[in-house]
């Protein structure tokens, strides 16, 4: 299966950060369709609702400070589900506070990236993430959805 055909999920509430992130990925040559959730609730709806993407997104980029449902809650929900429990979830956030880092990993984050403020560094970071998880990394085999049989 072509990884490029898969849709990745970007959870980000700041429109400027969202634009800069998408811009960075596109300029970095990542062609995957990008699903966007603007808050935690929307992210959960997208992942677990009726219109959940098939096959599963190969990567979730997750901001922590989200309106309504926080990034931590989304992470907990993802790891509680059998079909998502192996999906790479990269936390992409402004916080470099150690309690946040600790909490994210203990809830099962695959990786924790502090968003650089500097534009060039930010571009570089986002490109690297996409390149690593979508090109270099071999994703786990698709887990069949129990209810879809």
């Amino acid at each position, binding site marked *: 299966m072509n990884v490029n055909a898969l849709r990745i999920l970007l959870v980000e509430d*700041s429109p*400027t*950060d969202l634009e*800069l992130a998408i*811009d960075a990925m596109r300029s970095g040559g990542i062609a995957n369709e990008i699903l966007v959730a603007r808050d935690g609730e929307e992210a959960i709806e997208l992942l677990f609702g009726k219109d959940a993407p098939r096959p599963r997104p190969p990567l979730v980029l997750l901001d*922590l*400070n989200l309106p309504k449902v926080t990034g931590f809650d989304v992470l907990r929900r993802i790891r509680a589900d059998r079909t998502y429990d192996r999906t790479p979830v990269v936390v992409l*956030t*402004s*916080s*470099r*506070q150690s*309690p*946040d880092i600790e909490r994210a990993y203990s809830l099962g984050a695959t990786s924790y990236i502090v*968003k*650089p*403020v*500097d*534009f*060039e560094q*930010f571009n570089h970071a986002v490109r690297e993430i996409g390149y690593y998880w979508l090109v270099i990394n071999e994703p786990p085999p698709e887990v069949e959805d129990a209810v879809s049989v």
Partner: protein
Amino acid sequence: MRLAVRIPLLGVGAVLVTGLAAAMIAVVLGQNAVRVAAFAATEAGAEAYGATVQFYLKHAAQELESFSELDPVARTWSHEGLAEPESQGAIRTALSRSMAKIDRFEYVALVHLDGRVFLVEPATLQGELVRPDVAYLPWFSRLATKGAVVSDLFVSTVTHRSSVIVGTAVRDAGGRTVGYLVGGLRLSEVSALGGTPTAGYFGYLTDSRGLVVAHGRDPRLAAYQTDFSSVLPVRAALSGGEGVVEHHNAIEDEDRVAAYRPLPGLGWSVVYVVPTRLAFAPVGPLITAVSLTTVGLLTLVGFIAAVIARRATRPIGRLALAAEAIAAGNTTVRLPPAGTDEVGLLTREIEHMVRTLGERGDELQRRATELRAANEELESFAYSVAHDLKTPLRAISGFGSRLAKRLVEADPETTRDLGIIRANAQRMADLIDDLLEFARLGRQAPSFSIVDPAAIARDVLDELGTELSSREIEIVVGELPPCRADPHLLGRVYANLLSNAVKFTRAAGRPARIEVGCRADAQPVEYFVRDNGVGLDMAYAEEIFGVFKRLVREDEYEGTGVGLAIVRRIVGLHHGRIWVESSPGAGAAFFFTLTGGSP
């Protein structure tokens, strides 16, 4: 010791002391009473004995007098010119008949006025007479002058044994003294007046010189002419006194109570003796009775005290259990009902205390909840600062850069301005991060463990690798003693101090040298990071540890001005001290101690 034990012991102790004192007083009083009684009894014994002896001697004298008035004695002897030997027959017959009737005398003798012995009856003793003259004997002159005598002890010319005689004058019809009649007393009979040898108590007599005349316990003493003149009661009686003494008889090894008195008229002494063991015999039962009473009393008091102590301490024990439960944090414990005594008072005090404790506990819990809420609020505030302040900065940087790219033909001035915007956005973000860290240090409790500071410093140096490898810096990490610290926080200390050292040696104009070491002999150990960089003016030595305090221009040395403030706060969390020793151009040494981390 428990009260339930101590109170009965105190009771028994008190009774023991007073009981023993009372018992001793009782014994002493009893002893005295017994002594007085014994003395009185002994004295009475002496009096009775004396009277008996006197009575006996008086009778002996009367009997002898009656002998002298016998017809053949009085008439024949005086009329026939002091009796011819032929008339002896009639006299002997009369005397022996009377002596057979009254067996008081061993012998009787008729003596002429000049002391010659006329005859001795019984006649068998006549032949024993070695000297027919008694004028030389001390008693004869008294007999001659007074007409009657009781002699002291002397050796009889008739029996050749110790003897005492009673003598009387023989008178004719006209009342003239024509001779004397003497009778030798049976001393064993006199001794028998003083009791029997086995009775224990006895009386004895001495003559005026202290020689034993009769002895109730050992009659032989009279036969041996034993001299008692030095015996205490005898001496006292012979000098005219009467009374009772306690003395020790060395010969028989016996303590005795002896009553003594003179025998009137004769100058003899009368002594009546009761051995102390007999005199004080009633004291033994007295002591036994007192002892038994005391022991009984002690047992009774001990028992009563134990019962009282149990009753008194039981509520205290219950209270102690309750207090223990309260101390363990159970403020709902039920206390025993409070009475009106001291224990009740204590119970009420504890009840009050428990109530107060409960209220305080609730208050404390409420405060803790409030504090937790405030902390959480602060946490989320810090989070918002981190997130929400940095997002716009990222937008400024990002969109500024995009703008710069689009303006391909932008003049150098525009490019420079956009660069400044980007740099400041970054600087702002760094400031926010550092400030958040600084704020967080005030709210986090360090987690101490034993760490190796040298290893931590080396790890930090590895992380600083990029800049170090691009420059030529000599770095020396000395041997550092282990200490108790939060390893993560100690890493932040070294990170800040080492990056400062790297930074400020950059423009010193000489090969950089950085030393990580300590003064191990100082107490507490002083750790330091020393460089040979630009140094600083000691006038600002205190200021540099403040937040946003910078001594250098921003365009020369990067940094937020929070680093040393963070270092000082961390050292403070370890209850240590930090200071700098430096002079401009000569490098700087930052010292710190970590005392508080010590357990």
